[in-house]
């Protein structure tokens, strides 16, 4: 309850912070639209030539992009900005302001994950959901309730997996403050715009087991088109739980390393 109240407070404060930079609104708007257009255009150009690509139709491929955009929007809504305030450029680890955060009588992981909100990302969320709805309508088969339920579950697990990866990458900053590990991840995460099945075998393996960004977007898309087995659902759940646990333990270990920037 206290944590929910805090989230509410964080959202309000972030809103006040955000509106003090009004010009950013238009830049964000432009960025969101460009992101959408380049993504959709890429898929559209390919499927202008062929009907299916390794078993994925236009609508299905678009649904993967929709999941990608939706999950990115969720990330940009709070996980990204919060972790950025910790581990990004001018982040607290770098500036030494983590001193104050460390002394809060509560879960530091909670603070590090929920305290900054970028409400502009709600617009991205709408765009992502829009692509998803469009993709769902364009699919050949009708949507069943169970498909939608499976989709929402796997989307949640996917977001959980992404959160775990981001948390772990952020924790790396305690070993080398100022190194932007997140940029490496962002490069890899771009690959998740398209279905995992489109990639050659070794890339597929890497995107499933090493940095499982493929799992994050492809599995929910499979759930939406109705081709998801119970095993895959369970796989996605187990992976999310294990990764979040490991990332939390790793994060805690990383906090112990914090030496605090010199006075």
């Amino acid at each position: 309850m206290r944590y929910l109240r805090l989230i509410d407070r964080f959202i309000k404060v972030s809103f006040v912070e955000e509106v003090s930079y009004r010009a950013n609104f238009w830049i964000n708007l432009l960025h969101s639209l460009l992101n959408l257009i380049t993504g959709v255009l890429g898929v559209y150009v390919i499927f202008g030539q062929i009907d299916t690509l390794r078993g994925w139709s236009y609508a299905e491929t678009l649904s993967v992009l929709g999941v990608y955009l939706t999950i990115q929007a969720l990330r940009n809504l709070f996980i990204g900005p919060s972790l950025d305030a910790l581990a990004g450029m001018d982040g607290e680890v770098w500036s030494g302001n983590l001193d104050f955060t460390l002394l809060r009588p509560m879960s530091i992981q909670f603070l590090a994950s929920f305290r900054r909100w970028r409400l502009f990302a709600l617009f991205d969320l709408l765009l992502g959901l829009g692509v998803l709805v469009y993709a769902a309508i364009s699919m050949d088969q009708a949507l069943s309730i169970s498909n939608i339920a499976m989709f929402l579950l796997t989307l949640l697990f996917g977001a959980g997996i992404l959160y775990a990866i981001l948390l772990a990458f952020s924790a790396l900053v305690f070993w080398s403050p100022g190194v932007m590990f997140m940029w490496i991840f962002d490069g890899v995460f771009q690959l998740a715009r398209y279905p995992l099945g489109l990639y050659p075998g070794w890339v597929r393996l890497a995107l499933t087991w090493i940095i499982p960004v493929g799992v994050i977007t492809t599995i929910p898309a499979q759930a939406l088109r109705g081709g998801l087995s119970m095993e895959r659902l369970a796989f996605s759940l187990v992976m999310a739980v294990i990764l979040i646990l490991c990332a939390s333990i790793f994060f805690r270990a990383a906090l112990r390393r914090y030496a605090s920037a010199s006075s």
Partner: protein
Amino acid sequence: MPSLSNSPVIFVRNLTKTYRVPERESGLGASLKSMVRRSYQDVKAVQEISFSIQAGEMVGFIGPNGAGKTTTLKMLAGILYPSEGAAQVLGHIPWKRETAYLRRISIVLGNKSQMLWDIPPLDTFGVLGEIYSLPAAEYRNTLDELVDLLGMEEVLKKPVRNLSLGERMKCELVAGLLHRPAVLFLDEPTLGLDISIQRRVRDFLCQYNQRYGVTVLLTSHYMADVMALCPRVILIHHGKLLYDGRLDGLAQQLAPFKLVRLTLNHGISTTNALDLPPNAEIIEQENSHLTLRVDREAAPSAAAYLLDKLAVTDLTIEDPPIEAVMDQVYQEGNV
């Protein structure tokens, strides 16, 4: 956690902190080499210091830059893990960072801000109230009282980035005290402030300490802060504890010399050497005024010598000013 009235609130035994600092030469070649293999150097920031502080005490923690003051403060607050040694504050081991402990302490750092930059202080205070889960009425009362004591009503609604350094420091103090900590660690709270705001901050700390009996450990490079607030000082240098005791005892113990101030009944010519006692050193000379530095034990005999040899109209023997003592200790590094 209730503590016995006679047991110290802060208890430190042989506390030691060694940093491992990467070391490299300047230049592109060296920096490329250091990417492959780094060499490290162990820096002993704090070495086996021990002290204890009773409830309600205000203790000045002094020493030159890099002496280990902030490191010690951060270990006691729970931000840093020590390499060796033990400490207890309010019955807790600080670096375990137990919630019950964190609710009862606070740290204010003169060169770091816990205010959110783009929004008015009131919003930051609100977030802190929620983090410390303060009941609304209690939050309101504490805030009103602190704002009143610091005289800062008018800054509450301006964005923090538009505040002056002094106004921001007041905000930092409010942010640090909203949850009514029993122990307050202050690291250079008057850093960079003008004289009148320094005084305001000092008055505030003094009043607050008297009103609530909060235990304060304060570092400052302004001896005026320490003299105004701290009857007791702990001096550390190169990570070692050099002195722990009353501020007015510091000069006696640390400065092996006294100052003899003389007024002569004639001007002093630079050509004619004055007949001075052996080992006396002139440190100031202006018209008929003269200040000499003599060994502490030799001061009485030096005075007698001077009265005998020179036409003295006035003579005083005094301890050197605290700044001069500190300067000497900082430079020589021993007592």
